């Protein structure tokens, strides 16, 4: 199989820091990545030179690894181009820079109005447009036009106990219309309140405790606890704790987990993946039973099946691999407030940070950005940030309550040095016991 992946990418960021428009930056990049697969070997080369000569040189370089190839010329009938245009209604590129700056100033002012303990505010805006075209000797011929818009606020609060930080972000696979319904001032206020609350926080607990995760607090739990372990590249190499578990109970029966690249506007959404496959909805775990893994072209071919639309790459300079899109747990039937009320003691996590997993052992960590003690079924004192640690299958079996609420959060997922935008979502849920990595014994 031979494949050409062309990409044209533009980006713009504006940073409002310490009350000033400090940095405005824009960039453009265009090039092609050429992949040649012979047997189990992949040759890859990329070039920013899109002339015929540049492309042929890259192709020769990619094909060099396929020694002993038959040679000759093969004519491949391509599908009719499946072209996808963006659904963005307002291209950020068409919006005046002054308008973007006024949003940043608005978020800054709102954050600072939360109190004099807010000593630093950084608000940033980023827009990106990524146009891709994929053609392969399998006949694939598809294009996509992806527009993403992001707004972040980071605050530092200063008090007797030192410095604390609070973040909030909004990120959608949409154009400037994302700000039609969003209140950037509220993003600033949330970030500021998070930082301020932690000034009076006590050290997080050490040891196993029941944990309630708020709806949309990050969803990174599933991303790490099983998402990565369900990527087929780990499965075919026996380097996932979920190897050979198809059809088995791998989670509490409350758990139905979906990866879905089609959810319009979500941060991990697209029309076609970076191998030209349409995005699709894949149920990974249904009522606790493992139903399928996630696949890209290469791993699917090995198993004689089709890709699940999970072949993604950071840019034309990278090889595609199995990646998540928008990964979320479906909502349950309990009142979120009741879940807290029925937890005598524990920790309530309102906002999660990032995480990391060892897919082979299943051990994973995820961090908190806003958490509180639960005492007598009520949310009480704020806690300082810490990581939680658990083993994927074990933690998934301990999910014993699921709320009716649901929301998604954007994130950036890193794997083998490549970063891609992903979405994570979940309802309010409780884990009956997980190890909290604080300092308070």
């Amino acid at each position, binding site marked *: 199989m031979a494949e050409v992946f062309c990409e044209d990418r533009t980006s713009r960021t504006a940073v409002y820091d*310490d009350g000033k428009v400090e940095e405005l*930056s824009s960039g453009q990049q265009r090039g092609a990545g050429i992949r040649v697969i012979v047997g189990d070997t992949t040759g890859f080369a990329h070039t920013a030179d899109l002339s015929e000569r540049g492309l042929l040189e890259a192709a020769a370089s990619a094909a060099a690894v396929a020694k002993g190839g038959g040679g000759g010329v093969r004519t491949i009938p391509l599908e009719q181009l499946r072209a996808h245009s963006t659904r963005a209604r307002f291209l950020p590129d068409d919006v005046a820079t002054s308008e973007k700056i006024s949003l940043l100033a608005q978020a800054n002012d709102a954050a600072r109005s939360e109190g004099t303990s807010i000593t630093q505010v950084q608000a940033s805006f980023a827009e990106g447009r990524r146009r891709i075209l994929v053609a392969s000797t399998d006949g694939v011929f598809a294009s996509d036009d992806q527009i993403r818009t992001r707004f972040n606020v980071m605050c530092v609060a200063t008090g007797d106990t*030192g410095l604390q930080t609070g973040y909030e972000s909004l990120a959608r696979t949409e154009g400037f219309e994302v700000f039609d319904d969003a209140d950037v001032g509220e993003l600033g206020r949330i970030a500021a309140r998070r930082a301020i609350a932690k000034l009076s926080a006590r050290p997080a607990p050490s040891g196993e405790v029941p944990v309630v995760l708020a709806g949309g607090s990050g969803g990174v739990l599933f991303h790490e606890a099983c998402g990565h372990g369900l990527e087929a590249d780990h499965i075919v*190499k026996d*380097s996932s704790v979920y190897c050979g578990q198809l059809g088995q109970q791998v989670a509490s029966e409350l758990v139905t987990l979906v990866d879905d690249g089609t959810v319009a506007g979500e941060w991990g959404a697209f029309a076609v993946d970076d191998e030209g496959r349409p995005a699709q909805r894949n149920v990974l775990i249904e009522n606790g039973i493992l139903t399928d893994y996630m696949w890209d072209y290469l791993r699917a071919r090995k198993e004689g099946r089709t890709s699940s639309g999970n072949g993604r790459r950071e840019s034309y300079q990278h090889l595609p691999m199995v990646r998540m899109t928008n990964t979320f747990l479906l909502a349950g039937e309990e009142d979120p407030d009741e879940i807290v009320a029925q937890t005598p003691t524990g920790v309530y996590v309102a906002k999660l940070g*990032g995480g990391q997993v060892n897919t082979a052992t299943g051990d994973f*960590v995820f961090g908190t950005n806003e958490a509180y003690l639960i005492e007598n079924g009520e949310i009480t004192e704020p806690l300082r940030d810490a*990581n939680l*640690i658990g083993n994927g299958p074990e933690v998934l079996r301990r999910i014993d309550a699921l709320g009716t609420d649901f929301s998604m959060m954007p994130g950036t997922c890193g794997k083998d040095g490549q970063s891609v935008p992903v979405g994570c979502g979940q309802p309010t849920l409780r884990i009956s016991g997980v190890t909290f990595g604080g300092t308070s014994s």
Partner: protein
Amino acid sequence: MSELLEIADRIVERSGSGERLEAYVARGVETDVRVYEGAIETLSTATSAGVGIRVLLDGLDGARAGFAWAGSLEGEAIDRALRSARENASFATPDPMVALAVPDDVPPASVEVSDPEFSTFSIDDKIAMALEAERLARSSDVRIRQVDSADYGDTSVAFAIASSTGIRASADRTAAYLSVSAIAGDADETQTGSGLSVGRGPGSLDPAHAAAQAIERSARMLGATKVASTKTVVVFDPRVTSTLLGVIAGALSGEAVVKGRSFFEGRLGEQVAVPSFTLVDDPTNPRAFGAARFDGEGLACRANTLIGDGVLEGFVYDTVAANRAGTSSTGSAVRGGFAGTPGAGCRAVVLGAGTMTPDEVLANVGSGVYVQSITGVHSGVSPVSGDFSVGAEGLVIRDGELAEPFREVTVASTLQRMLQSIMAVGSDVTWLPGVAAGQTLAIGDFQLSGS
């Protein structure tokens, strides 16, 4: 004169009146080989090049800065980047502290970070090294069930920087690495460990070392369990220490400090660590992985003492952060390639070498835990608040020696307390990729969270 410097010069020549201009031009060649079960799984080779342009528009209230980059060195792409940088600058807030670097009198150190033999290695030589590392990892120890990846990678990059304020610099560097990731255990158990060999070129790589390290680190984890929560001393493996010092180096960035985003803010001259603790950022040390002649603004890199005998002595600065702090650049501008603007950061941080061998450190500690790898640094360590909580695995230390393995626990403290609780520093300085050297390091007063 290098071709890249010529390109940078030509861009700078276009600066108009009332503006200052800086061009950073870079080109890199990269090879990556991954092998699996004795065959090539992927082989990638590629060249990339680009330019980053900063424009400062001068005004009465200070300068306005704009930046733009392009992943190409073609005339049209450069033209567009210059246009965008100027346009971006027109929207920035005037700021008297914003400036480009101006040449100072510090001469660059004569550090050689390019391997002259680099280009003499063929792609087949490189493939052979990856295959050899994988073969050794698979065949040397029956406890190894799987080698899920064995990678060879190298880069050769060159950059040039020129500005209308008189900066002109160019440099190149090469690097190569081998890494092996192994899985130990029978069907009922899985433990992982990785091995690494790094150098300036393929000739300094050692496949046997990378394989042996992957085997040792995964096989010694067999039988690992979650241990009980306790207060404990932690001895960090050199690789972990390198990560840890990297975080502390981030908090010593003058940029983070002037922006109030470092727990070191306002503590200059104070005893922030035990008296035996000395931390220096020295990119002029040719052995340092991050050694360099020029910083990201084209000034000479120099040695900067950050913490001396436990006292906070200074921070690292680029030009703008230095202006804000009322001092001058320490030659510490770093940038993430042509698409990034410069910021202040360390390149080659190292603790003063201790007098104890790693075994002596263990003996000295007596009981505690030896941590061979950590996870969740991004989510659990804050250079702003100093909060520190990471996932950890390694071996229990009993009677001054390594004993049974553990995993799935966290170790937590604060960076402030850790610096005041250092018990022993190993003599085993190892330069690793990243901004800091690794060495065995014992720190007391951690809370371990487990079962």
